[in-house]
């Protein structure tokens, strides 16, 4: 029980538009363990991004409860959720979403300094992380528009990690990248997970999903299957076959 970091009870999300209601998530019960690399898969419109953003406190559920540890975050106000996010969550987005008017280093520090006021410590940590993801000193003072997609996403990962979050929420992190950059980013995520960082990723890409240790399949707002793969090992053919077979079973 103590390993569960994130839990939802009867989680529902409904969108209303022009008198029409769309039930995107339906009474979802879900538990995510600390340090896990959980992947949510599903076809377009299945509600996987909605689930990710509800669990991360970026959006509020229509019904149901969400617990982060023993705190019920679904009751939080918007500002309390913001404070919760800065302390507990890191985000990696498909569109990367760096602030274009800030340098690479400032993008990382803007997030880091929200929690730790010690500039020297935060700067040191940001630089270490940037080096870890392969960005050299010459890149730190560049603006996002001067980076390649892969480089920019690596900055996004550093920004997500700067506050040592409990969970990194990744929404299609390789969706906007070419295959080489995608592999770099996935390797990076695997590497940080191996160091104990929990990751919850949404993807519809098998190559990305294969990196996860636990795969959840979402269909019409309901989790209809789960596949446990264990820790990722490069070149593990059985893992790929198991995932493919699971997805086929789910109607992928």
């Amino acid at each position, binding site marked *: 029980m103590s390993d569960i970091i994130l839990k939802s009870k009867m989680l529902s999300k409904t969108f209303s538009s022009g008198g029409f209601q769309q039930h995107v998530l339906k009474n979802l019960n879900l538990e995510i363990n600390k340090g896990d690399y959980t992947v949510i898969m599903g076809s377009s419109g299945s509600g996987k991004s909605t689930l990710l953003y509800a669990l991360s406190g970026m959006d509020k559920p229509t019904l149901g409860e969400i617990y982060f540890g023993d705190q019920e975050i679904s009751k939080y106000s918007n500002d309390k959720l913001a404070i919760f996010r800065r302390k507990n969550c890191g985000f990696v987005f498909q569109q990367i979403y*760096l602030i274009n008017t800030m340098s690479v280093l400032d993008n990382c520090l803007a997030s880091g300094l929200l929690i730790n006021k010690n500039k020297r410590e935060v700067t040191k940590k940001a630089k270490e992380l940037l080096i870890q993801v392969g960005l050299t000193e010459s890149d730190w003072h560049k603006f996002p528009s001067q980076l390649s997609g892969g480089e920019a996403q690596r900055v996004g990962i550093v920004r997500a990690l700067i506050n040592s979050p409990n969970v990194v929420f990744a929404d299609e992190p390789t969706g906007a990248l070419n295959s080489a950059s995608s592999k770099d980013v996935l390797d990076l995520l695997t590497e940080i997970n191996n160091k104990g960082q929990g990751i919850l990723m949404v993807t519809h890409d098998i190559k990305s999903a294969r990196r996860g240790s636990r795969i959840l399949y979402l269909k019409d707002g309901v989790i209809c299957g789960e596949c446990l793969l264990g820790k990722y090992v490069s070149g593990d053919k059985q893992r790929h076959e198991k995932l493919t077979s699971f997805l086929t079973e789910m109607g992928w």
Partner: protein
Amino acid sequence: MNKIWMLSLSNIRKSKGASFSLLIVITIAAILLSLGLLTSLNFKKAFDNRAAELNSAHVAAAMNYGSYQEQFDTYFSTYTGVIDTQKEEIIFLSSAKYAYGSGELAFPAFFINTSKAKELSPLTLAEKLDEVSGRDIYVPYILQSGGGYELSDEFIINYRDKDYSFRIAGFTEDILLGSTNLGGVGFHLPEESYINFQNELNDDTTNGILLQSRLDNTNKSDEMITNFQKNVILKGQEGIASSVWLCSYSAAKNIRTQTATIGATIIIAFSLIIVLVSLLVIKFRVNTSIEDGMADIGALKSLGYTSHQIISSIVLQFMLIAFTGAIAGILVSYLGVVPLSNMFSAQTGLIWKQGLDLQSSALCFILILFSVVIITPFSARRIKKLHPIIALRCGATTHTFKKNHCPLDRTKGSLNFVLSLKNILANVKQNIMIVIIVSAVCFASVFGLVMYYNIVINDKAFIDMVGVEMCSIALSTVEGVDTAPLIENIKKMDGVRKAFNYNYGSVTINDESVQAYISDDLALLDNNQIYEGRYPKYNNEISINGSMAKKYEKSVGDTILVKFGSNEIEYLITGLSQGMSFMGRDITITLDGVKQMKESYQYNSINIYLEDDIDVKNFISELNQRYGTKITASINMKDMASSQLGAYSSIVAIIASIILIITGFVVVLILYLVIKAVLIRFRKDFGIQKAIGFTTFQLMTQTTLSFLPVVFIGAILGSLIGSIYINTLISILFKEMGVMKVSFIVPTLWIGLMCFGICVISYVVSMLVSWRIRKISAYLLMVE
């Protein structure tokens, strides 16, 4: 053309709030500009029209029988250009006192019997009572608009320490006799009141004559008065010059339209500032709409729209707003004429009714639209250089950020503070615009505040500017009295700070009638009006008003010919003075100096200065008790000044309040426009910041902090420039009236408070407008 219309209307619909705010700013500019133009182009015309309707005399002379000579009558009937003349018997009081506003006025007063029909300046009543009594009086309209009197009020006139009570039965309109600023006031009495008053006075010296003439050309009125003084009065009996009250149409027009002229100048100047603000806002709006709609511009260009068509749609968009604003402003300005007219009438004593004036409305309309037509294509010219593909990529090549201002790792201060600094430095052009706008409106506010402080709160500098020597009591002595021993005795009375001779009279320079101040004790004056050189000391010296010096091309060290009576003497100019009380036509000379022209000239006026704690009214009573036989009039100057300044005070208070309110309003609108544009432009960044954990309040504070220093700098800059140059500006505005140097007090504390107020308003507005950040959802940003 239809396509351009569609694009323009679509742009307006897309930015309804911003378009509406701009519309408001343009409407305010149009209201002020139209009001200013209406006043400056029509007030004097309305004065002429009203004078024609009233069949007003163009020249008037009033005097008691003792001063009257047959040749005056001849002069008034036979002077070249006179088309009608009129002689009436009147009651003439050389100095009558009555309450006016918060103080008291003391002027020559003329009482005309209304029972006698007359052609020139017939009795015209603006308001009247229906029932009649034996104590009725018709007083000039200015006593209602500026003096605070109403119909049926009791009106008490004090003459030689005796009160005479009347009931106000009506308010008259009279061009030459109906103002408190022309040195004499005319009252009308029905037959019964007239006879009662005459009997009560029971004094033959109060019997007088009023001569009035109408000319074929009003421009001749000044010349007629000057020639009258020069060729008729001054050739006659000694002492007459100062006992005949004279007034010309030109002088009356200048003085009675002065406030409106000054008011119109201030309103036009302020409206031009607001027009400038509108143009800067348009430039900003064009820039932001190009930035925000760059992809749309790219799409339009790729569809085949030319740059000219796209620019035309932007020009049309702002033309539509300017057109609507200008029309609305011009229409509203006509509603504003009524309160403006009421405000002016407190000083002018004129009822100004203004109908539609195509000239000023068209001028206002053209000026605003022309400015917009010029500024909009100029601001939108970069569209020509935008290639479709670059525009479709949202100007990727034009969005290269050159410098990372205030790096977070090296800049001291809290995260929010440093992020705000980054915003300030990253938007220099926008901030310069805000600084210019806030500076401009603050400059105008400083003008309003300084005027208010120096006219309403502490009027010393204003009185100095007008050129009045503010003694406690101005004493006139009976002709032939030796003033030297009288002054010595007055000086010995309790509470007297100083007393000295200070005469007023008329002399002629270059055939122009000029006011002369005569004294040997000029060093004792409280108000030193000399701004270059010094007052005269010797009998061959003179100081002249700076505007006269400019007109006659004279300077200190030059000589000037002065004529008094039949003698003309050349004097050395030792100083240049300022002062607007006689439209800048005054000189100062010593008694010995005057005696060079008229050997028999004597002092007949004394200025008395009392300690602050002395009751002036009691002191005057005591003076009259002790020296009543030697005194003809004693005027409480402080009371008189407060009465006359009262009208100015209320006008200035209203103008200053309007300027301050508009300033606050403009600051609010500008911040609303700019912050809203920023919220739209940086919506994505706000979403990202929210996602990574910034609270709405942090982002609001960040946004507010990025504007507050800019507004503060603008406020300080505008206030500083205003404080430094305000006296120069006022002296330029009033130069034509004889004001050469102004020393208005700059109320630093007030200005500081105004800056603080603007910053507080800006803080509140910024927080309120950026409260919209709460609606920016990090989640929606991700799923868009």
